[in-house]
């Protein structure tokens, strides 16, 4: 009899879990919609900004025969020190979302270490911080709360600090790793080189810009300001992208959990019914054999 009761309790608890995971799935899908909207809106800004950088960079390239001579564009062939910024979620329960980012970061670290390059890690998101702290890896920055609620000002403050280290020559390269959103069921690890600006991504020599007037009349100042904004923006956008991916991943994980719970309830119910049937049969046999012995 104790067995019956136990199964019944188990069914109840699995049902409860199912309710929780289902609710979490609904919450994530609502949040995903909002984040997607945000990403869509801010993509316009990104497009305009990139266009402008393109034009200024082109203008500079046309006026300087030996390419763009600017601190943000100098490509160091053998970097000595690399900063890796990586974005993870603050919370778990989202499948392999965080693990994938951490894996890629670890791989990058190993790659650079093999080339004798010093690596400085800068972490955004509690899960990544916890992981590297547990493994006794030193982190340059630890930011919690930003990946759950991207804020342009906070993001730009953080990245400005990193960019400053780059301008001062403390680091030769800045790389940003995050898990990006592709669609509802796919996430993709994205690895962006933030500084120096990846000139291969810019479409140089596309349009003639000789007519372009610039104010203040100093290409360098303008370009520096633009690049700074571009970098800040890339950071912000990556945060939004990562958040969207996080919600999508959580939605998927919770959906799978709900399905699993449903299956488990089904199995347990069968088991419960069987046990009950068994108990009844035993009781009947007892009664009948008792009656038989009375005769």
């Amino acid at each position, binding site marked *: 009899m104790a067995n019956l009761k136990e199964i019944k309790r188990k069914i109840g608890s699995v049902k409860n879990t199912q309710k929780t995971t289902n609710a979490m799935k609904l919450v994530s899908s609502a949040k995903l919609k909002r984040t997607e909207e945000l990403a869509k809106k*801010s993509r316009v*800004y990104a497009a305009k900004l990139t266009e*402008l950088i393109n034009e200024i960079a082109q203008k500079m390239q046309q006026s300087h025969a030996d390419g763009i001579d600017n601190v943000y564009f100098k490509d160091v062939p053998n970097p000595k020190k690399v900063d890796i910024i990586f974005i993870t979620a603050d919370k778990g329960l989202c499948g392999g979302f965080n693990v994938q980012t951490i894996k890629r970061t670890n791989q990058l670290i190993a790659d650079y270490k093999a080339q004798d390059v010093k690596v400085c890690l800068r972490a955004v998101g509690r899960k990544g911080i916890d992981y590297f702290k547990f493994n006794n890896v030193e982190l340059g920055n630890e930011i919690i709360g930003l990946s759950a609620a991207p804020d*342009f000002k906070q993001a730009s403050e953080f990245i400005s600090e990193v960019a400053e280290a780059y301008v001062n020559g403390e680091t030769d390269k800045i790389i940003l790793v995050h898990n990006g959103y592709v669609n509802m069921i796919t996430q993709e690890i994205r690895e962006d080189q933030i500084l120096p600006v990846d000139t291969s991504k810019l479409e140089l020599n596309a349009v003639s810009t000789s007519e372009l007037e610039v*104010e203040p009349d100093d290409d360098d100042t303008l370009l520096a300001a633009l690049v700074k904004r571009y970098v800040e923006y890339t950071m912000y956008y990556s945060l939004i992208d990562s958040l969207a991916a996080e919600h999508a991943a959580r939605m998927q994980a919770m959906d799978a959990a709900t399905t699993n719970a449903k299956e488990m309830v089904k199995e347990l119910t069968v088991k419960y019914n069987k046990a009950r049937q068994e108990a009844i049969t035993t009781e009947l046999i007892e009664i009948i054999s008792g009656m038989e012995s009375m005769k």
Partner: protein
Amino acid sequence: MELMKLEIVTPDGVIFDAEVKQVTLPGSEGEFGVLPSHATLVSLLDTGVIVIEKSDSSEVAVAINSGYVKVEEEKTTCIVDGAVALSGEDSDLAKALEAAKELLKSAESSKVAIASAVSKVEHMGKSL
């Protein structure tokens, strides 16, 4: 009168997109006005107020903290970090004014630029 397209884009999306008669911008080298068919120009924008004269001659003010503008003959695009629009049709003008002042005060630029922008916003608020 001739019209040109004006777009104001922030990281949170497009906040203004319409045909306008004229726009006055707070450039880093000083305030300047842009009329249709202006020569191609790229400029940094300082903390200040963008004043837009719409096609029906009504005025809209947009407080910004910093950004860039790209002027082409038929189109002007402002790429700004943060912006708050103030217009006569807005029912929550007082609230928008407060938000605009907040934005200006938090900007990282010279006190003179901030003070002049704030006073301009207050003035605009009265006239709207």
